């Protein structure tokens, strides 16, 4: 707005100066160039025109001049008219210019406004877009979250199922292990001849290793009973078995996990004392 205010300043000053100059010229008796048409109308002029238009006062004042003066006056008048016209034209031009400028300004403003509006619109649009995107993102996130949640639940369920299955498996497996442990027990017990020095309360712990075919490959006394004969009887009981044939029925994993290596504790309970 400030810019547009200043833009009016110069045309207004120019216009005022021009008007001032014209008035000064008229006051000092500048005679316009003669006007031929004015010559035939001197009589009439005197009475009325003065009051009609102050602007025509100079004309009335010129009227009484002589021909030459009239011509001169006319010329001046014409000149003034011309100047007036020129002035008007200029004014018009100035006006036009101003209007043009104003228009340009308006246009510029409009343009700016438009631009602003466009920009605002664009911004609005961008905002809306962003919001939309945000909302979309939010939705997507929510969906993702839901999906994740669902996945988590599914996984949880799967895990629970797996655990349950594992529990069932391990129950089955525990049963299997128990049954095959019993088999091992039987095989060893039926081969265990205790020396007469064996006593209740004696205990020897052996570490047994089998090969893939369930053959005994290593028997190591881990914890001695303190009675060499007793320890040896336990060792021999295992060695006499040689191979736990039925362990080969087991699936590989169960065998590897449980029977590839295990501990035997010999603790007689069927002795007299």
């Amino acid at each position: 707005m400030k810019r547009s205010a200043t833009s009016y300043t110069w045309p207004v000053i120019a216009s005022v100066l021009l008007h001032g100059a014209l008035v000064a010229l008229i006051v000092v008796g500048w005679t316009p160039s003669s006007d031929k048409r004015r010559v035939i109308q001197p009589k009439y002029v005197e009475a009325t025109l003065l009051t009609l238009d102050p602007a025509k006062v100079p004309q009335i004042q010129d009227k009484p001049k002589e021909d030459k003066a009239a011509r001169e006056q006319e010329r001046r008048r014409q000149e003034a008219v011309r100047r007036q016209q020129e002035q008007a034209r200029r004014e018009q031009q100035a006006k036009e210019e101003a209007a043009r400028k104003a228009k340009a300004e308006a246009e510029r403003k409009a343009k700016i406004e438009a631009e602003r509006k466009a920009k605002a619109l664009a911004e609005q649009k961008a905002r809306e877009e962003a919001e939309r995107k945000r909302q979309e993102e939010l939705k997507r996130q929510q969906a993702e979250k839901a999906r994740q949640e669902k996945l988590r639940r599914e996984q949880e369920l799967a895990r629970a199922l797996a655990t349950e299955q594992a529990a069932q498996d391990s129950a089955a497996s525990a049963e299997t292990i128990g049954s095959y442990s019993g088999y091992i027990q039987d095989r060893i017990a039926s081969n265990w001849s205790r020396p007469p020095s064996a006593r209740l309360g004696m205990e020897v712990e052996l570490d047994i290793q089998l090969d893939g075919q369930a053959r005994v490959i290593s028997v190591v006394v881990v914890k001695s009973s303190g009675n060499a004969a007793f320890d040896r009887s336990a060792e021999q009981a295992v060695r006499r078995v040689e191979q736990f044939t039925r362990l080969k029925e087991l699936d590989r994993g169960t065998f590897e996990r449980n029977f590839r290596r295990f501990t035997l504790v010999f603790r007689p309970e069927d002795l007299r004392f």
Partner: protein
Amino acid sequence: MRKTHGLLALLFLSLTVLSARAELTIEITHGVDNPTVIAVSPIESGQRILPEDISQIVSADLERSGLFQAIDRSNMLSFPRTSGEVYYRDWRVLGAQYLVYGNAERQQDGRIKVTFGLNEILGEKAVLSQVVYGTDGNIRDIAHYISDKVYEAITGIRGAFSTRIAYVTATPGRNNQLVYRLMVADADGARERMMLESREPLMSPTWSPDGKELAYVSFETGRPAVFRQRLNDATREQLTNFKGLNGAPAWSPDGRKMALVLSKDGNPEIYVLDMATRQFTRITNHFAIDTEPNWTPDGKALIFTSDRGGSPQIYKMVLATGAMERVTFRGSYNARPRLAPDGRTLVLVHRDGGQFHIASQDLISGDFRILTSTFLDESPTVAPNGAMLLYATKRGSKNLLAAVSIDAGVKFLLPSREGDVREPAWSPFLN
């Protein structure tokens, strides 16, 4: 604080390690106690044949213990003499768990040097390796010595193959009159020696703790009297000469005293004779019969038979205090107690439905079991290693000796001989 953390970390680590170590554990609480299969490779001298077959004696010794089953020599694939010559596969195919091998060498001085060893077949390792010296005259001693060492290595119990047994035989002599003989033989019955011969009954032989003397009851004076007799020179000494019953001598574990039964004061009571002072101390004082005294291994108490409760039962009396307790409660007849060297296994004659059997009772747990199924079993005597007991039994009209392992797993009759065999007494360890 940091230290605590370190400790905690360590603890955690060790716990983790522990849990990681948690592998399958299987407990074996029963066994079958089958005889151990053993092979005894011939132990021979290259230069000259030995007067006796050491390996056969060893095999027989081990088998007689009931804990071993010997592999017949004819089945052996090789006869190793040293550990280096042992091909384990040869013995595995025979099912042998142990192998005894050895080599005999005659030395410059005529003595025999026997190097022997014991290898475990399944574990493929040497268990024992020793040298023993002897002469042509005591090959059996060498063999029993080897048996003892092998038995001890495998069973964890001292072998008793080098011990002896004393017993009484009664054989019809001239005019069908019975002749009584006090005999001593190796534990396997071999090398029988007569210590005393009498036309009057001989009874209750018992060993001195050092194994050098026997005490027994002889009726040679017309009434029962207790005698002691040295084995090496047969010198004897009469210990009692009282009116009435003089019997059932039992040397105290330290050899300084002898418990016996005298009826000089009316009815049979238990006395203790101080061997040095010859003083008798009356131990029991009851109108019922008290008899068959036997020392506890610590020498502090006597176990004996008494019918003070109305029927023959076993009682125990602490000598220092005179405290008495009844030991047996099962059945209406428990007599002739003998304590095994462990001091807790009591063997006795138990009447079960009119049958007399040898039974054992654990003095701590009270566990009671009948060990024999023969008929009219009597006079149990426990081997010094506590693994076996001998007793007299009847087959048909004949008295003979039988053996049973203290856990009743093994029973066998000693080779039958002419006449009746009675009242066995197993010697203490002699070496």
